[in-house]
Structure formats: C-alpha cells, structure tokens
C-alpha cells in the first residue's frame, strides 16, 4: 500500500536552449507509473561525483497513464551541482532513484477561475496546470514573465494553448500586476511560480488588494529535510547523525535505537522525547506553544534541530 521509491530511466533529453533541457523519464522496472497530477513534483537522487543530491522538479505535463514524467531543468550558475549534472552528465538510458510524485501545488476544483503567473523556468508546473485545466474546460488565464531573450522560447512552449488568455511578457515591467489582480472575478485562485521575488510580489499585491490567503498559491516543494545535525543519546550513550533528507526518527531507527512512534507525522504524541541540551526546531502539531518555547521536548518524527547537537533523554 505504501510505495515511496521508484527507479526511473531517462527516456529522452532535449535541449530547448543553452540553459534549458527537457528530460523525459519512464519507469525503469516496467511497472506503470503512478498518476502525476498537475502541480506535482518528484524528488530525484542525483549522484554527482562523490556527492549525493536530492533535487525536486515539477512535472511539466500531467501524467495519467502516459507512462512518462516530463521535466524541464535550467542550468543554474552557481549550481548546487544538480543542474550541472543533469546538463553535462545525464544520458539517455541512465537510471535514477526517486520518489513518487507529491503535490503541494495542486489546483482547486472549487475555483471559478484559475489565474496562473509564471516567472522564467517557474513556468514548469503551470504548463501542467494549463494542460489539465483546459482539458477540463475550466476558466484559466496565464501570464508568463520572461527575460527578453527567452520570450520566443516560452511562447513556443505555450504554443499548444495559444490565445488571448495566454500571454508572455518580456522584461520585469512587462505586466501590470495590479491591474491584472484587480480585475479578477470573485472565486478566482491565483497560482504563482518563479523567483522568490516574483512570488512575494504577487502574494503581497494580492493581499493588499484584499485577496484571502486561501486563494493565493505559491509553488512549494515542502520542507521535509533540513540541515544535518547530531543527536547524542544521554541514557544509552552514543551519537546518531541525522542527514539532510531523513527524519530524526528514521535516523534513530536506522541506528537501532528503540524510539517509540505511531503516526510519524507530528500529531499523536507517541514519540515525545525529552531534550536535555540543544535547541529543537519544532515542526509538529502536538506540543503546545509554551512547550515548544520551553525547548524541553521534541517530536523526532518531524522535528529537527537549530543547534548542531541535540542531547536527548534516550
């Protein structure tokens, strides 16, 4: 019932521009791929040299029985390594480990209208949304902001849906955001994906114009991991390193520490552990605000540490 890891094979790589590549993935095992809805992303494990990176990429097309996931990756400079690996080393036929799609940027079926705003390569999840919403016959409008030299490229990516309600704007000043957000009918949801500055600007403008929070959606891959840290076990002795992509609970379990758990989602209280030293970073819904502020307890199934070291009563 619980499926998490999938082996992907690279089926095709296409160069869209000197800095953008379109990657097509398929199942490496022949098993059908789970549904990849518009807005979903997949995390891929990339082995670049001796470093292991986990990068998340939005799907650019809904995948529903197509047997493939499509991504666009921009070469970033300076890169954390992932985009250089994808651009310079990844080849057709390569097998990558990854997770099933996870959707933190879905569209809302309750909406009367969907307004999509993209900036640069932030267009990727919006391409999937546009395809899905058009197919459903939903009311949708898209505005893409692009550097002058990329207007032609994005216009071409959007060509299948060309029309008055799909527009590419060159340059930062190309779109009158205030006018756009002011004329949207009741029941509109806005979805924005792009550089943080753009997402902040759209969100800030929408809030200032009186849009409620629940109608403003920014692309997010969520924050499941974080900075690595070390746990010292006061009672049993020993230290456990918590990596960037695993939970404290997983790390403890992998190290053979008998740590209680039930929900594994920060709700039930089963994993409550006393903190003797160090500063926890609370991500649970169990502890009260006062308990969190006291720093005396932590829920290892979801929470992490602000300090390099946490000493636990385990």
């Amino acid at each position, binding site marked *: 019932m619980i499926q998490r890891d999938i082996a992907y094979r690279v089926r095709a790589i296409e160069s869209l521009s000197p800095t953008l590549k379109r990657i097509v993935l398929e199942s490496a095992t022949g098993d059908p791929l789970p549904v990849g809805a518009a807005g979903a992303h997949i995390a891929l494990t990339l082995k670049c040299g001796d470093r292991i990176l986990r990068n998340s990429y939005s799907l650019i097309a809904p995948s529903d029985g197509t047997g493939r996931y499509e991504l666009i990756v921009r070469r970033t400079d300076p890169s954390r390594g992932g985009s250089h690996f994808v651009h310079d080393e990844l080849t057709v036929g390569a097998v990558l480990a990854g997770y099933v799609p996870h959707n933190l940027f879905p569209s809302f079926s309750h909406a009367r209208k969907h307004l999509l705003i993209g900036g640069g390569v932030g267009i990727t999840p919006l391409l999937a949304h546009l395809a899905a919403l058009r197919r459903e016959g939903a009311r949708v409008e898209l505005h893409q902001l692009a550097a002058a030299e990329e207007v032609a490229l994005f216009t071409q990516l959007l060509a299948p849906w060309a029309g008055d309600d799909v527009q590419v704007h060159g340059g930062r000043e190309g779109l009158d955001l205030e006018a756009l957000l002011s004329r949207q009918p009741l029941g509109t949801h806005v979805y924005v994906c792009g550089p943080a500055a753009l997402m902040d600007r759209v969100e800030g403008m929408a809030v200032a*114009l009186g849009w409620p929070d629940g109608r403003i959606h920014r692309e997010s891959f969520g924050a499941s991991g974080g900075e690595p840290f070390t746990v010292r076990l006061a009672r049993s002795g020993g230290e456990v390193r918590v990596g960037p992509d695993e939970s404290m609970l997983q790390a403890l379990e992998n190290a053979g520490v008998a740590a209680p758990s039930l929900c594994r989602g920060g709700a039930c209280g089963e994993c409550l552990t006393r903190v003797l030293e160090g500063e926890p970073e609370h991500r649970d819904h169990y502890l009260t605000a006062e308990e969190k502020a006291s720093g005396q307890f932590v829920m290892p199934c979801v929470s992490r540490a602000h300090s390099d070291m946490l000493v636990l009563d385990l």
Partner: protein
Amino acid sequence: MIEGHSRAIPSPLPEETVHGFRSASHLLIALRRRLAQEHMGFRLYAAGTEGFLWDVAGACEAAGMGKAEYRLCHSGSAQRRIFCVHCRTMTDGVTTNLVTCSGCGAQLFVRDHFSRRLNAFMGFQIDAEVPGETIPVEELYR
C-alpha cells in the same frame, strides 16, 4: 476587461447607495446579480436573523466567495429553522427545544448541530427509543 464608453450611458436614476427591497427574497435576487459582477477583494457584510444570514452566505458561496470574504452579524430573533432528519421537512420559526415536525408529525428535539448548506438545525425524534419518553418543553430560541 471592460473598455469603451458603456458606462457613460446616462442613467435616468441618481446613483443610489441605499437600496430598498420588497422582501428578503427580492434582495437575494439582486444580490446574486450584483455578486456576479464583483471582483476579488470585494467584502460583504450582512446583519439580520440567522436564516437570512445563511441565505446571504449561500449566495456568496455560489458566487465563489469563501468564508474570509463575508462577515455575518446576527441581530433580531434567534428562531431556528429545523430540518427533520427522518422525513427531511423543514419547520420554520422554532423557538423551543422541542417541536412537532410539520412533515411527519414526530416530536423533534432541536440539536445544536447546524448545516450551512441546508441553513437549518437538525431535529430528531425525542422519543424514538421509548414512545412518550420526553423532556419538558422550554422556550430557548426567541
């Protein structure tokens, strides 16, 4: 987007800020039309009896508004509209903890469970387990 001069057609009536209506139903018809023209950022404030307020809320939701976009303030009678969960008939203007269902005739107990969709409180038969086993009638919702 509205462009051009359509707004310049002279209106025979002066611009009104207060509209009179013949009834709540009349008001709701006008409200639905009006909401269809409104834009994001619009806020609606309503005051009145519970039944009226949730009719207004229903019109807002139908126009795509969410809870954050309208504010309701109760004033006037606290009478309840009761949905008989057995026969599905509504009984209006209920002020007591028990009421006879206008559909099936059951003695209904008025619960504090309210449905915004139905704009009604739930009523269930008070003596379903033992016929005649009931509680004293009290006036609670005037």
